[in-house]
Each structure stands twice: as C-alpha cells, then as structure tokens.
C-alpha cells in the first residue's frame, strides 16, 4: 500500500464573525495516500471547502482562523510553517482546482501565460524551458494542439477546455497533492465524464494524490478510492468507496445514499432527509445529526459519539454502531 502523504488530525477552523463563532470545521481527521483519490462528500455548507482552504492556509483572514489540529504533509506540519514557506508549497506541492472554470482564469492573459506564471514561480527556468513545460502541462490534460491553445485567451475557449486549462495550471509544477473543489459541477454530464476519466489517467501517470470535494455520489463511485462523509463540520464516516456503497453504517450516510435517484429501482417518490442541517453557530449538544436522525436514542442528544473503527479502515461516529 502506498505511503500516507497528507494526514489531517483534529482540524478545527472557526470563523469569528460579529454574530458569533461559526465552527465551520470542528475536529476533522483523515488521510490521503500517494496515488489515491480521497473523496470528501457532504451537502452544501458542511465545511468541505473550508477544510480544503485550511490545508492551503488560504482562509479569508482575519475572520477565518485555524484554531486547532495538525495538517501533516510528508512529515511537515503545514500549520507551523512561516507564511513565506507556505507560499512555496502552494502550486508546487499542493495545488487546487476551483469550481468555476469561467472565472478562474485571468481574462487579460493567454492560457499559456497563466500556466507559465506558475512554472516560473516555482521552477526558475529559462523561457524556452518554460514553454516546453507549458506545452507538456497542456498535453497532460489532453488539450488538442497545445501550441495553438496556449496563445488563446480564456474567452476563446469552451467551458470544458477552460476547465482543462485550469487543470493544466494546477498540474504544471507536478504537485503531490491536488485538491479539486467540485471541479465538475459547472460542466455538463458528457464533459464531466471525460474530465473524470482524464484525472484518473493523470493520476496513473503522475501518482498524484487527489482530494476530491463533491456532493455527487456518482462522481464518488467513479473517481474515489476512499470517501469521507462530512456533516456539519465533522467527518462522520470514512471508508473505502466499495464499503460506503455496500454497507453504509452511519444513518446520515445511508440517508444520503437513499436520496440518490436510481435507474434500477422503479418506484416511489425520491427519499429526502427531513429537516435542515444545524446552524454552525449554534450546534446542538450530542450528535450533530440527532435532530434529523431516524434511529436516534436518548444518548444521542446527551453526548457526542466518538469515532470507532468497525473494520479495517472503516471509521464511524455513531452511538448505534458498536
């Protein structure tokens, strides 16, 4: 088995706002191995993106603060690095793809220039070498005729092409960890499938570890080796993709599974989880899912469940699981 590249331990990221403290990420732990894709799944506003930004240390300051935990990348705790040191990690060791390809490219530079910027920042190469790197990054993302596309401005490209260009920027310095924040949400189904196939291929070639943030279980099944399910700032279940799909243990995970529309089962109205996720400003005592949980017991709203490993690599935080 590959070695663990990134290990996040007890990460707590709070936002200090006028209305109170928002506990966006409250004790999240997971790891990502080299050459592996780890999916982070959850509904909107459950802390997926904040977890990603915490790893890059790009939280909107001064409101967002990492108040606890460790982020260990290959033996180095990123939270202890000086900000100039951290800058050298960004783009080179850890890279990220944002959600919307239409706006994540600078409209006034050509695609080639924008890839070249990252290459120049981290590799200190001569101009000719830079161009080679730019072309090879575009090739890696399977962009046709890279020599032509690199001279195009973002507005001249289609959405799918732009998203690949964004991917080329992210991959240009051969990062070891790639964080993809719902990169396929803005694409249509066909392009989405191509994009995912492309990343699987890139992972095979480069052995990059991918942390894939999504709310789409279809994408998870297709792309991820292991999955962490997040709810209200916590990871409530972690397992291999196979196990999550076969035997989800946490009631939230199974509820999520049930609310995915399926082609092979005819029937009734699509299941949906009743109620709303709790406000991150004012969390209930006990288990966060308690108010919506169909199988809750007394202990669930008195004490927060701790994480238990029920089988090799399958972690659940629920009182019902023993």
């Amino acid at each position, binding site marked *: 088995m590959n070695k663990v590249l990134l290990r996040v331990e007890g990460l707590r990221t709070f936002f200090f706002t006028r209305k109170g403290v928002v506990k966006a990420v409250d004790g999240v732990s997971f790891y990502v191995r080299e050459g592996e894709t780890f999916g982070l799944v959850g509904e909107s506003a459950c802390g997926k993106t904040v977890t990603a930004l915490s790893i890059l240390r790009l939280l909107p300051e001064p409101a967002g603060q990492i108040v606890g935990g460790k982020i260990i990348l290959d033996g180095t705790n990123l939270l202890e690095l000086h900000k100039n040191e951290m800058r050298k990690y960004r*783009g080179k060791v850890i890279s990220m793809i944002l959600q919307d390809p239409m*706006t*994540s490219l600078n409209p006034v530079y050509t695609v080639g220039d924008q890839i070249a910027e990252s290459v120049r920042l*981290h590799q200190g190469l001569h101009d000719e070498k830079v161009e080679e790197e730019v072309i090879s990054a575009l090739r890696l993302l399977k962009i046709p005729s890279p020599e032509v596309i690199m001279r195009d401005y973002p*507005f*001249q490209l289609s959405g799918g092409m732009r998203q690949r260009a964004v991917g080329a920027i992210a991959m240009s310095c051969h990062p070891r960890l790639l964080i993809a924040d719902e990169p396929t949400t803005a694409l249509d189904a066909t392009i989405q499938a191509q994009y995912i196939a492309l990343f699987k291929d890139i992972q095979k070639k480069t052995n990059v570890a991918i942390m894939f943030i999504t709310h789409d279980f279809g994408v998870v099944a297709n792309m991820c080796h292991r999955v962490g399910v997040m709810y209200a700032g916590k990871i409530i279940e972690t397992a291999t993709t196979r196990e999550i799909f076969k035997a989800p243990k946490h009631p939230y995970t199974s509820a999520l599974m049930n609310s995915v529309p399926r082609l092979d089962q005819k029937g009734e109205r699509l299941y949906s989880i009743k109620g709303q996720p709790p406000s991150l400003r004012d969390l209930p005592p006990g288990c966060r899912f308690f108010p919506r949980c169909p199988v809750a017991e007394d202990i669930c709203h008195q004490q927060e469940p701790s994480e238990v490993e029920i089988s090799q690599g399958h972690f659940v935080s629920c009182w019902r699981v023993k």
Partner: protein
Amino acid sequence: MATTKVIDWDKVKSGTRQKRIFSNLTFIIPSAVLLFLILTAIFAPLLAPYPYDQISMPDRLMPPFFISGGTTAHLLGTDNIGRDVLSRVIYGAQISLSISLIVIAITSSIGTVVGIISGYTGGRTDAFLMRVTDISLAFPPILVALLLAATLGPGYWTVVLAISLLGWAPYARLIRGEALKLREADFVAQARIIGASPMRIMVRHIFPNIINPLIIMVTLSVGMVILTEAILSYLGAGIPPPAASWGNMVNDGRNLIDSAWWISFFPGLAIGFVVMAGNFLGDWLRDKLDPKLRQI
C-alpha cells in the same frame, strides 16, 4: 408561405469593412490632432509669427483675418494689448499640454498605487488610506492651490503641485473599488493557489484588469486639468503673465467676450480639441485593450 431572406454576403463584408475603417478613423483622427498639437508645442518658436509677449498697442483688438477689419498679419487677431492670438495659442500649447501630461502622470500613478494597495490589502491599511483619501477629497482644491501659490509664489511647478496634491484622490477611490471587486475574483484566488505573493497579485493580476477604468479616467482628466489650470490662472495663482497658457488666455478674453470673442474662442477651441481627442483615443484604446472585443 414564408419568404426566404437572401443574405447578400458582399454587403455584409463591405459592412464590416466600413466598420473597420470607421474604427480606425477614431484612432487616426484624434491621434493626428494630438500629434499636431504636441508638435506645435515643441516647435512653437519656429511656428509662431510673433513672440508670445510682444505688445503692440496700435494693433490692439484686431479681429481674425476672415472678418472685415482683420489682416493676414494677425491671422487670429490680437488681444486687448495687441498680442498676436495665434502666437499665444501656439506657445500656450507648450504650457497647457505639458502641465496636463505631468499632472496626470503624477496623479494617476499615486492614485493607482494607493487604490490597489488599499483595495487588495483591506483591513486597517485600507481604512487608513481611505481616510487620507477622504480628507484629500474634502479639501477645496482651489483654496489649497491659492495657499500654495501664496507660500511658494505662482509659477509652473506651483500649478503642477497644486493640482496633483489633491488630484490623486479620485483615482484612488475609483481604483480601490475595482481592486476590492477583483480581490474576490476566482482568478485571484487561483493566483494565490499557485503561490503568488500579494505584491505579484497586485501588479500582475489586479493592475491589468483595472486599466480600462483608469484610461477612461485619464482621458477625462485631460480637460479637467486644463480647466483647473485656467481657474488658477484667473485667480492669480496659475501661470503668471505674460506667459501664455490656454487657460489664462480664455480668462483674459472673458470681459471682452461680446466684442472681441476671438481672444477666448481660439484657445477654447484648442482645449476642446484636446479634450475630445483624448476621449476618442481613450475609447479606441479601451476597445483594443479588452481582449473580449479584440478579435471581433
């Protein structure tokens, strides 16, 4: 039955050609006007038929040559102390153009730097810089200029200093707003992700995206600077006589506007040309700099 519309492709092509020629004209004409005026300013001593300060009382208030009573010796007539208007307009180009060029260079640079730093950095830096900007905007510029003229003595550099001292503030305001908007843009987040430093983000990612409003502001300032200089000259805090600037010439003729309109009219015309040329050129430049419009 529906009628089929036949597209005449030759017409379409000639239409786009006309458009292209027109768009080139909006570049050629204003730049020709500006170039002409700049060359006039540079070669003023060779072009002007008379020195700008040559007084000749017998020839006073002579109308331009195309009006009865005018002579070709004074093509655009003379002012109330017999100075040749044409010569003074030509010499005035030197002062008026160079002042607006210098003032705009100073104010737009300061305003842009302050605005970008303020907008991108945010927090206390932003609060501090914006309060300084507010204070600058609150001061009445004419009074400050008068104060400067009183302490430093009127003169060319006093005018430059007086207009620049407060003139950067509107730029800072505008640019800060743009920078504030761009700070949240995804491509700026992307730049942070690849490890760009704040300095680099401000220079390489924010600045090129605020060039459009900056250019528009610059072109609009040309007229404003020339007019401010005119006001200062009128109040005795501008370019001291006998030197000619377009502004002080317009003011010289103010009291005689119904009898000897040419004293104010021709320098006014020159101001109008510069302002319009600036605006047209600004428009053209904006279209050219916007990659979205570049290849249409």
